């Protein structure tokens, strides 16, 4: 469903991503792994329009989306989360969800100002889908809570929920379990699997090997902005280049 062709990004001479080719299949969980600084988050930023690539193209269902703005790419059905938990932390849980599904509604300026026919049903629909997603997240009873009162795991969950509420076809998750302890990580992993079962394709950046091996259908390994391996978890485990990259990475760190 998503195809990346010869994607490159340079920052003032520094190559962050180099001639990257890969695609994401409908319904799979694709994991992108690699040592720190391998360019994983940069890839996400390039896919979602936060950064403009120096060269190369990104396609969704054969439609060229390179150079579109982030809010336009969302409308193509690609939603994302950020590496550091990013929420509207001055607002309530339900408000976060409503903002997440706003673009699918026709709740714009004039409709809101004049309460045009259809405004009410649109509004109720938005609240409905926000509540449904909260239910799916297991946060239904927290709808009116303010963000700082949530636990870290709940915040991570909600951040995924804000991306999920507009029913994207493809969900990009940037280290969704960073900073969480083992049980929490397992719960989030379980949750991500259920997201996929609902029919959403998932692409995930992760550091926690064990979790990734148990979850991903395919794994893509990046090092210094280049693809060094791609394949099933078992292939990756025994891949010599991957092992070297990781050991090398450890040694430097």
């Amino acid at each position, binding site marked *: 469903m998503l195809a990346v062709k010869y994607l490159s990004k340079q920052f003032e001479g520094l190559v962050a991503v180099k001639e990257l080719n890969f695609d994401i299949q409908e319904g799979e969980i694709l994991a992108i792994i690699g040592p720190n600084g391998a360019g994983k988050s940069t890839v996400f930023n390039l896919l979602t329009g936060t950064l403009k690539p120096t060269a190369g193209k990104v396609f969704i269902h054969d439609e060229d989306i390179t150079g579109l703005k982030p809010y336009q790419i969302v409308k193509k059905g690609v939603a994302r989360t950020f590496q550091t938990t*990013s929420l509207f932390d001055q607002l309530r849980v339900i408000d976060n969800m409503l903002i997440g599904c*706003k673009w699918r509604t026709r709740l714009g300026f004039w409709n809101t100002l004049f309460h045009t026919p259809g405004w009410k049903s649109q*509004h109720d629909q938005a609240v409905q889908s926000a509540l449904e997603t909260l239910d799916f997240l297991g946060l239904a009873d927290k709808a009116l809570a303010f963000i700082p009162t949530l636990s870290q795991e709940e915040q991570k969950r909600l951040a995924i929920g804000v991306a999920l509420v507009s029913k994207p076809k493809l969900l990009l998750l940037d280290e969704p379990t960073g900073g969480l302890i083992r049980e929490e990580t397992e719960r989030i992993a379980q949750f991500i699997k259920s997201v996929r079962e609902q029919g959403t394709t998932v692409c995930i950046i992760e550091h926690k090997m064990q979790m990734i091996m148990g979850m991903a259908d395919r794994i893509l390994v990046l090092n210094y902005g280049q693809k060094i391996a791609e394949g099933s978890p078992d292939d990756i485990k025994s891949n010599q280049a991957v092992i070297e990259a990781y050991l090398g990475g450890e040694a430097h760190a």
Partner: protein
Amino acid sequence: MITKPIHTKLLYGFILLAALLLPLYAPDPYMFQVIIMSLIFAIAVLAMNLIIGFTGQASLAHAAFFGFGAYGVAIMTKAGISFWLALPAAASISALLGLVIGPPALRTRGSYFAIVTLAFGVIVWIVAGNWVQVTGGHNGIFGIPRPTPIPIPFLGEIEFFEQTAQYYLVLAFLLLTLFIMHRLVYSVFGLTFMAIRNNEPLADAVGINTFTTKLIAFVTANFFAGLAGGLYVAIIGAVSPSVASHMLTFNFLIFLILGGMATLTGPVVGAFAIPILMEWLQELGHFRMLFFGVLLIVTIIYFPRGLVGGIRQLNQKIADWRQTKS
């Protein structure tokens, strides 16, 4: 999405009743004038609140747009156009000019946006003081007619020479502004303003066209700033470049910050209470601004949500305390 508790509704009802009955107390004409002005300022500050308080973009051109409305109504009504046509026209011109300056200005962020809008405000102020043929230069325009009387079948007409009629006119526009602001802000659409203030990259990432949303907030704010300016000249009967000066913007800012940003009550409380406080402090002379300057600094450091936000916080603390006790 949750309804307000019953005692809050009662409080607002009581305030509305008091506002409607206020002329019966027959305040002295001077104080009455101050109150009428406060209500006009409340409209302007509510508008400023939309762009600064809710959307988080420090537009410091606010008095310039107030000035567009003021000069617009002054010039049009002097040319014989009915006030009832001139007022919406002037407010629309103000909004339209916002639509012109908005796109370049909104490409900048943070304090850059503040300085660009301030620069625009200063240009408007200088032009108002020097374009003598149109604005009357530094002397301004005098003898602006009062709002055109409204004919009522069989009963005669409502005229606006009396303070009481002027008061109700201004109050009606304030209530209209409050109604519209309430509708816009407390809605899914209104949440997008706050989303931009709170976390613009995330707003962008969840499909909000942040540029257009900011532009809508800016233009709407400028429409109501122009409306307030138009009402102002029709009541005062004269206009001078000071209505477009950055000092007036700073005054609005004081009302907004002290009253409380990002609430609908805050701007009204600020615009109502501060001018009256300023009148009381009249004999302090220039010490007044010293006082308000210090107050502004202290508020933004220690109570960034102003008076209304502070009270809400206190209420919340009391509620929490009760909950833990029971």
